[in-house]
């Protein structure tokens, strides 16, 4: 299916926005003013962008420790995100969560769990709520191949399929959980196929091809909205940076450098840019324009964050219970 150019530009912009934000984090992290671990999704941007294109603002999204991208593509406020990296009161979590815990309820982004697999059942629960209410909303939940190891994935998928809930499971298979390969953890190797065990639908897709992801998500969203239950999207991709932090990890022996290089060749942003330019959807000038707009937004967000107030000791005991 050929996409509308508006959609194409949106997808490109969405990916680029995540990429440039993350690159800014890479640039500024060494200053040590973002005093929390950061898990970057550089190299994996196509997945969130392709899926989120099918989510309405009041649909739900749940994510994990590697959640900056998901937050942004769902429409989360960038200023509040960056302020959270900086531990400020203006952060989306008032500085209490840090980079691993970002939220924007105004756009249905209901949080990220840094416990591997922890967010999955919540996505199903939000879908259950929609199903009971009959409000037509759907949920998407993002998790890694590591989360596929966890029993909670199995329990959650079974429940979603059993009850035909409107939820999209998006497994970003980057072949590693920290430094442990998928082979070292999974007896089988085809994550998407496991949907068959639940008499449900699995789709394995090139996670670096944003249109492929878009198309898979279109089908999944359609299934969700029409009462056909969950879909398991397995999107194959690769993380460029180390598991945590702004640096690469091959030097430390975590992964083969050649493997990284091969995947960098398949950069989702760059390759889509090439396609869009080659097919005349955008030209270099338009690309510059898009980048410029994003860069300004990012600069503004960082400025906002850095100039925002830090919490004070008095904030320590607040926010535990809702009165």
């Amino acid at each position: 299916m050929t996409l509308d150019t508006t959609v194409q530009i949106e997808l490109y912009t969405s990916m680029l926005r995540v990429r440039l934000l993350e690159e800014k984090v890479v640039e500024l992290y060494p200053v040590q003013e973002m005093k929390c671990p950061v898990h970057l999704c550089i190299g994996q941007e196509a997945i969130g962008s392709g899926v989120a294109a099918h989510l309405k603002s009041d649909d739900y999204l749940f994510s994990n420790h590697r959640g900056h991208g998901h937050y942004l593509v769902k429409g989360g406020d960038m200023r509040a995100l960056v302020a959270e990296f900086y531990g400020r009161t203006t952060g989306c979590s008032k500085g209490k969560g840090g980079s691993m815990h970002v939220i924007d309820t105004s756009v249905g982004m209901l949080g990220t769990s840094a416990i591997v697999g922890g967010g999955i059942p919540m996505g199903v629960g939000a879908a259950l709520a929609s199903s009971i209410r009959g409000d037509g909303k759907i949920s998407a939940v993002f998790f890694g191949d590591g989360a596929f190891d966890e029993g909670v994935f199995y329990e959650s998928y079974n429940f979603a399929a059993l009850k035909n809930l409107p939820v999209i499971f998006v497994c970003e298979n980057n072949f590693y959980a920290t430094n442990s390969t998928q082979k070292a953890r999974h007896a089988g190797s085809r994550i998407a196929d496991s949907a068959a065990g639940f008499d449900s639908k699995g789709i394995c897709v090139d996670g670096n091809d944003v249109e492929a992801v878009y198309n898979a998500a279109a089908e999944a969203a359609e299934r969700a909205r029409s009462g056909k239950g969950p879909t398991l999207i397995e999107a194959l991709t690769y993380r460029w940076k180390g598991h945590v932090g702004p640096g690469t990890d091959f030097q430390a022996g975590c992964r083969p450098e050649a493997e990284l290089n091969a995947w960098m060749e398949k950069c989702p942003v760059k390759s889509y840019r090439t396609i869009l330019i080659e097919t005349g959807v955008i030209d270099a000038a338009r690309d510059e324009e898009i980048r410029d707009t994003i860069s300004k937004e990012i600069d503004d967000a960082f400025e906002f964050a850095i100039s925002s107030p830090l919490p004070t000791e008095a904030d320590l005991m607040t926010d535990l219970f809702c009165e």
Partner: protein
Amino acid sequence: MPWTKVYSDRSEFDIAVEKDPSLRGLTYRDAILEASTQLLESDKEFFIMGEGVDDPGGVFGTTKGLTEKFGAERVMDTPLAENGITGVAMGAALTGMRPLLVHMRVDFMTISLDQIANHAAKWRYMFGGAINVPLTIRAIVGRGWGSAAQHSQSLQAMFTSVPGLKVVMPATPYDAKGMLISSIYDDNPVIFIENRGLYEQVGHVPEEIYKVELGKGIVRQEGTDVTVVATSQMVSEATKAARALVADGISAEVIDMRTLVPMDKEIVIESLKKTGRLVIADNGTKEGGYSAEVAAFVSEEAFDLLKAPIQRVALPGVPTPASHVLEAAYYKGADDIVSAVKRIAG
């Protein structure tokens, strides 16, 4: 007030009704069922899920008939997948619904501790108050019949040790209904703990929907010589003990904590101002149990009021044994409270 009264057995309540025919007797079990029914009737955002909630027996009777009445979508049996299902309930709560998750036995909640302790308890704080978790989990604890180690724990301490959970243990039918309703309308995760030994207990329960405020203890029996702080089923053991102690000329004040977290420290301190002596009766394990926190806070914040060592009446530090002889030795009751009081009473 009729609802503050603890009736140790049915006959006591019958006598009370003779005196005051306006009293409406309901068992603890039926109080839970009534609260659940009324919430289902009155609030579309409320629903129940749990293993066996649609069972003909209905989780010891507390959910009996609800699925027939309200449909399987609002009173939903679930797979045996405690961690996942807890996360599902939590996810629904995050969208603003008010799910009630039911566990036939608290033992199974250890499987879902990740969702409870790492997620439900932390979600609000971790996101700086941006979202609430109006989830209530009913946890049934207490003595079985040779049920042994994995089917009769009382794990309140596991929950009270994690900041972010409200933990309640109603001791009377009146409170069971009122506190269940309060828990559902509390925007925080509440672990609602019921001792199955209480299910047959009868007490006055108004027909209408009402709330009992969380976080407030209540004096069940006034006294001047010793304070017995009790939880759940130990409250009626404590009232029995208080009655028995009269013969020894000892006046015991019985406090029903009702809510373990947040703790009503004030009511304990006020009582100690009179008595200066403290016995804590809880049906959890003694070492590392909830009774430890009560003792600790008093020894820290009200030490000067104490005239004698604190005493704890709680379960010994072993798993529950099966054989009835060992079970009898394992569990504690009014006698043990009486002995504890006597050890420190003047």
